[in-house]
């Protein structure tokens, strides 16, 4: 496993993200409310640049004609709106068959480090 310094911690504040090229792979690194996540920047559906999508909450299943919005974050693909868990990369609708690769990412001193 290789260690890659991808940013200074100050350059990736909460609510921001960046896209880096590591070993020929495009990877998105997210800081969501202080927690770091790294995912491959390619949607397993049609290959869209997944990490250009937004980290948002979503509607959760609810009784008919009611809405229940959850702030639990998902990464939403910029093309077709498929939603992925930031933590394990699994699709919210098809967790067993659709999954984007995730990478270990750490804050080490004042650096953001991705292991791939």
């Amino acid at each position: 496993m290789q260690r890659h310094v991808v940013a200074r911690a100050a350059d990736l504040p909460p609510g921001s993200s960046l896209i880096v090229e590591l070993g020929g792979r495009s990877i998105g690194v997210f800081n969501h409310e202080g927690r770091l996540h790294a995912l491959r920047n390619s949607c397993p559906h049609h290959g869209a640049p997944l990490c250009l999508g937004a980290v948002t909450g979503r509607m959760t299943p609810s009784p008919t004609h009611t809405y229940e919005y959850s702030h639990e974050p998902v990464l939403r693909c910029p093309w077709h709106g498929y939603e992925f868990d930031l933590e394990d990369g699994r699709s919210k609708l098809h967790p067993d068959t659709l999954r984007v690769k995730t990478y270990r990412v750490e804050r080490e001193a004042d650096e953001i480090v991705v292991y791939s």
Partner: protein
Amino acid sequence: MIVDCDVHPYFSNGLEDLTPYMSESWQQRLGIGQSASWSKNFAASQFVLPLDYLYINTAGATRLDSSPDGKIPGSDPAFMAEQLLDGHGIDRAVLIAGHLFGIGAFPDPEVAATVAAAYNDWQQERWLEFDRRYRGAIVVAPQHPEAAVAEIDRCADRDGIVAIFLPLHEIALGESHYYPVYAAAERHGLPIITHPSGTENVFARAPRMASTPTYYIEWHTGLGQIHQSNVLSLLCHGVFERFPKLKVTIAEGGFMWAIETMLKLDRDWQALRDEIPWVKRPPSEYLREHIRFTTQPFVEPHRSEQVEQILDMAYADETLVFASDYPHWDFDDPKRALAAVSPERRRRICEDNGQALFGDRLN
């Protein structure tokens, strides 16, 4: 040469973008441009392009990566060339007026015709002259056949024009209302393209769905209803007997319903053709010769091997032409969306059929 039959250029600032292409009198009538002050006070005192104001897409309606620097998606010819043409290997993109889908709903036919003509000049200058890979469809006012014919005659020989975009209207496509437009299309060798209007059931003169959908997802999934009605109308009125060189392309309405339409119509025609004796051959034969469907949004059956079965039944080698629908949210990439299709058939859909449809005008 990959041909994309449904790409949408957008204005940056609504109707105001058309100001340079309209007379001062028409600017005053529409309340656009510097001198028209009457229209700036209140929502109902402004002319707006009829669009889908009631069915709201909660996924954002466009590809989220298609609006760099906060620009309106599809409004920058240079960025579109980079993202769509270079990025997805599209060699020819046929432009369908993104903001004008709904002009068939304007109560005043002269307004629709004036907006259409101004758009055609804007498209020519801003898009077709910018990059030769862009090709244009002349947009016409469907509620004003006389002006539509004049507009086709005015623009047909311009560089880069390959088709006529006929927005949908409350009158079905097989009715005689449209015959002058079809005659002009034949005369100039231009195929007609239709596209969902975004105004279905919202405005009185818009095309209608069988009932008013509650949700965007109902509206979007059910758009094939309108196209099915129009295909039946074209076939049963014998439009292709009257206009044997006419081609009609149905954009963004799916095509699986066309399988049932062909089979059921052929069967009914056996017994009922006394009602429409001018339909001299099984109706599906006219459909296969004259009607084309764009691929997007492409079928995603539960078992991927069913894709080829569906394409067999739809006579896809003749009837399907590729479209991405850029920059909309349900965009299709030619390779990824059609990954389950054999390479030979993919070449027919993405290259050969589009070239046959538009002919030398694509060169």
